[in-house]
């Protein structure tokens, strides 16, 4: 099975808001010195799902990343985890694109090496929390899309049987291949790269593709980021006092009852 996985490099989502900063234009989040960016968590789940499919059914896994030059680190991690090939789309003009534009670049690159059997994407990126690129990508590639996928139950010759999360539970869905899936974190626990894999990936030279390589025209955005603002939380809770946990629990009940909340 020929699988493409889209991966994005993001600021470490575990950094508390008090540790992050914005660039002077107020349009980009800057991580503190010494804290490296990471592979988007849902994308790591998507890559893990692709590697498992490859282990069970054979095939090839290609990781595709749109990002700046530092994103090579995330692609090297993808290679170290077991991806067979890595493609970096790093034209500076692409960094400001909206979801539609980003998907257009990735779709053009994917078409260049032939539409795969399966495209796996994380359900959303933890920096923009947009959750759109995968669907624009599916539409542009003419693929059916299913998300958020929490389990791949079985693989048939020309289809997959999946579980997808819905409001109150899940659906079991069969999707014809080729298809695009939005992967959620319930599906697996991404593997750590092996030492051998990391060393081998370190030696791979990842060249970058620019607009001229894909013969792309400038893209007019439909959604434009105006500014970012860090949410500062200053309020602090009124602590309920008492001798021991049980006494504090009872005191909490008194307090909430007095306020008419329970």
């Amino acid at each position: 099975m020929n699988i493409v996985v889209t991966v994005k490099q993001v600021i470490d989502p575990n950094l508390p808001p008090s540790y992050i900063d914005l660039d002077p234009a107020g349009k980009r989040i800057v991580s503190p010195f010494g804290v490296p960016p990471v592979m988007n968590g849902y994308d790591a789940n998507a890559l893990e799902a692709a590697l498992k499919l490859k282990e069970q059914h054979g095939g090839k896994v290609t990781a595709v990343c749109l990002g700046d030059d530092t994103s090579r680190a995330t692609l090297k991690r993808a290679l170290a985890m077991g991806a067979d090939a890595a493609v970096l789309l790093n034209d500076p003009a692409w960094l400001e694109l909206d979801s539609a534009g980003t998907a257009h670049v990735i779709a053009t690159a994917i078409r260049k090496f032939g539409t795969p059997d399966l495209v796996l994407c994380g359900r959303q990126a933890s920096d923009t929390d947009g959750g759109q690129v995968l669907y624009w990508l599916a539409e542009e590639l003419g693929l059916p899309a299913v998300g958020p996928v929490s389990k791949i139950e079985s693989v048939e010759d020309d289809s997959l049987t999946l579980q997808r999360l819905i409001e109150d539970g899940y659906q079991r869905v069969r999707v014809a291949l080729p298809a695009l899936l939005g992967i959620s974190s319930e599906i697996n626990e991404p593997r750590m790269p092996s030492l051998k894999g990391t060393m081998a990936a370190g030696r791979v030279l990842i060249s970058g593709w620019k607009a001229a390589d894909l013969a792309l025209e400038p893209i007019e955005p439909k959604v434009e980021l105006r500014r970012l603002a860090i949410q500062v939380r200053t309020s602090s809770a009124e602590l309920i006092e008492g001798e021991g946990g049980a006494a504090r629990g009872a005191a909490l009940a008194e307090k909430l009852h007095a306020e008419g909340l329970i």
Partner: protein
Amino acid sequence: MAGVLIFGELSDGALAPATLRLASAGAQIAQALGEPLIGALVGNEVGRAADEFRCGLTTLYCVQGAHYRPYTAEACMAAAQAVIEASAPSLVLFAHGAETRDWVPRLAARIDAGLVMDCAGLTVEEHALVATKPVNGGGVSAEYVIRGAHRMATVQASAFEPSAVEGTPERIALTVTPSADTRVTVLAEESAGATSGPRLKDAKIIVSGGRGIGGPDNWHFIEEASAALGAAVGCSRPVADSGWVPSSHQVGLSGTSVSPDLYIAVGISGAAQHLAGISAARKVVAINNSAEADIFSRADYGVVGDYREVLPAFVERVKQLRGSN
């Protein structure tokens, strides 16, 4: 092109409570644009919900058909596209939820619309439509300008008060033939949240557990407290990811955004993406064994201690207090 079109939703045949909140968001922006508010309902049986969907609408489009349950993106997209073509709105709004975040971006791609999802606010500034939404797990808020021939947004309904506006919209029934695309087939639909009690997004009280609960064997503390209080059961993302409880209980940016009167967070550290999902809660109580937990920055009341002592004593005292009324 004129009008703000809002897509209502059904809940057990009735109008979903979130739709009334979406209507408030829609009414504000319609007023700012000086355009009418238009409604739409799509479902297998929309009659009862249509009677309840007033909200100052001038027109209500109803699309009814047996193929809208179980949920498929193709059916929703085809229906929405038909309503958009018939009503030619300048802006289309949806309540952000598990289904809309799947099919609305795909619709946007199909009709080439500018879309921002999970918006906490929408304003018109010098003729530009500005959407505000949490990003980076909720620690940062972003302002986007939405452009394009079609403009769309999914809205955190919980960020708005329910609309109490009456009205007698003109009803227009549309018939949309089912899509011929059979590449996605629903085999079965299962409700994982088989627990009785209120739904998360409509609940007045939510008791929510995090990793601090210690393991699935201790989850009964959360369920017992919820049952005693008549509350819905929530959980944090690590709990859902670990499979202690189904993901349908997950509160936060990648789960459900909630707006209860009272949110009781037990053993939840308070990751930004969780706090973003409870920003519309009226009062937040945190029970945590670490006084340093970030949840205390959002909580109105905090109890530092072992939840296994605090929670049962709390529930017991609530029962006594309620009984004495």
